[in-house]
């Protein structure tokens, strides 16, 4: 007696399944990025993409490496904790030597008043001035040297 009747039906079905699985595996390998899922439900190589972004601010350590005179000048000044690039702007190109041009000197007064213009929201002990009252038409740098803002006449 034949054990399986009309076995060719099952063979055909199995072949159909096998073909379906093959198509699925090929499509999946093509569509899913290589590193997707290695760390979680995301493309692990996206982390490297984010990390590869070039620096724009060089960081205080890079500035202090060469400009030791300014570091010494600021050592006892009230502005000592402020990073160079806070006022001078981002200078990673200058620090790494890829940009040859000399960095521009920031324009003093508009920069100073960002922090030091009187405004009710500022902490009580923070030094602020009403700029018109305080200096009239004089610029800040006439009396205050930005690296060491004590008045030295």
């Amino acid at each position, binding site marked *: 007696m034949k054990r399986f009747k009309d076995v060719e039906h099952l063979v055909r079905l199995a072949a159909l399944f096998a073909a379906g699985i093959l198509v699925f595996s090929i499509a999946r390998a093509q569509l899913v*990025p290589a590193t*997707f899922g290695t*760390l*979680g*439900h*995301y*493309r692990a190589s*996206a*982390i490297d*993409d*984010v*990390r*590869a*972004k*070039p*620096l*724009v*601010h060089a*960081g*205080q350590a890079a500035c202090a490496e060469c400009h030791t005179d300014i570091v010494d000048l600021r050592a006892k000044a009230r502005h000592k*904790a*402020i*990073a160079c*690039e*806070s006022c001078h*702007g*981002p200078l990673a190109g200058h620090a790494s030597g890829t940009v040859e041009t000399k960095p521009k000197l920031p324009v003093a007064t508009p920069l100073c*008043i*960002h*922090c030091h*213009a*009187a*405004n*009710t*929201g*500022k*902490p009580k002990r*923070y030094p602020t001035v009403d700029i018109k009252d305080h200096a009239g038409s004089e610029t800040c740098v006439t009396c205050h040297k930005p690296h060491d803002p004590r008045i030295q006449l």
Partner: protein
Amino acid sequence: MDSTRRDFLILGGKMFVMTGIAAAAFEHVLAGTPEKADTYNTADHWWAMLIDVEKCVGSGHCVRACKLENNVVDEAYFFRTWVERYHVDPLDMNHPIVDSPNGGMDGFPETYPDGKGKTFFVPKMCNHCVDSPCTQVCPVGATFQTNDGVVLIDKDYCLGCRYCVQACPYGCRYIDPRTNTADKCTLCYHRITKGLQPACCEACPTGARQLADLKNPSDPIHEFLRTHAVQVLKPQMATGAKIYYNGLDGSVR
């Protein structure tokens, strides 16, 4: 042929050992000098930030530095970090007046009269939540949290469906009009993984913003958290926000 089986084995053994040594040495040559090799290990860090509201003077240095560092569209409404000014009337503490002219980028030229109510500045940014709503709603896995606790966006994989922009309870996300993909603060991941400060912390003139690594036992954040009453924004949302605010007023939303 006068070489014996013994000679052959000795020679073969020598060659085997030498090949092994050469291969091991070549691996070191390929890895480059120790400084250049990438020693950053995500398992050693858990990034957070401390924002001291009492130190913030609303200068806008952080906003400008962030825009330059991360090449953010130079228009209002596109900010990875911005500074809000709160003005609270003592008779109506629940309805503070909040403004943020151009994200605080040019400072706050208009001032409130002295002596009437309370005014203070609150810098805001992505909270890099542990259970972040934005990563949970992304339909394709284009935004995720790294093993060191930073929420990032895969800009190549983002569809620009804007679901995450709506999901963020802090309003920290926006659609970059140049690429039509979601964008937000990365905690300057390209900087902190190289041992540098984020641009906003670097530029802050009063030290109101400090990067913190909670897995580093010698980080001053631990001492600060023990001795100060800090808050996170919208704790009722249970997002596990990791931007800790010191001196935050109850009226801040």
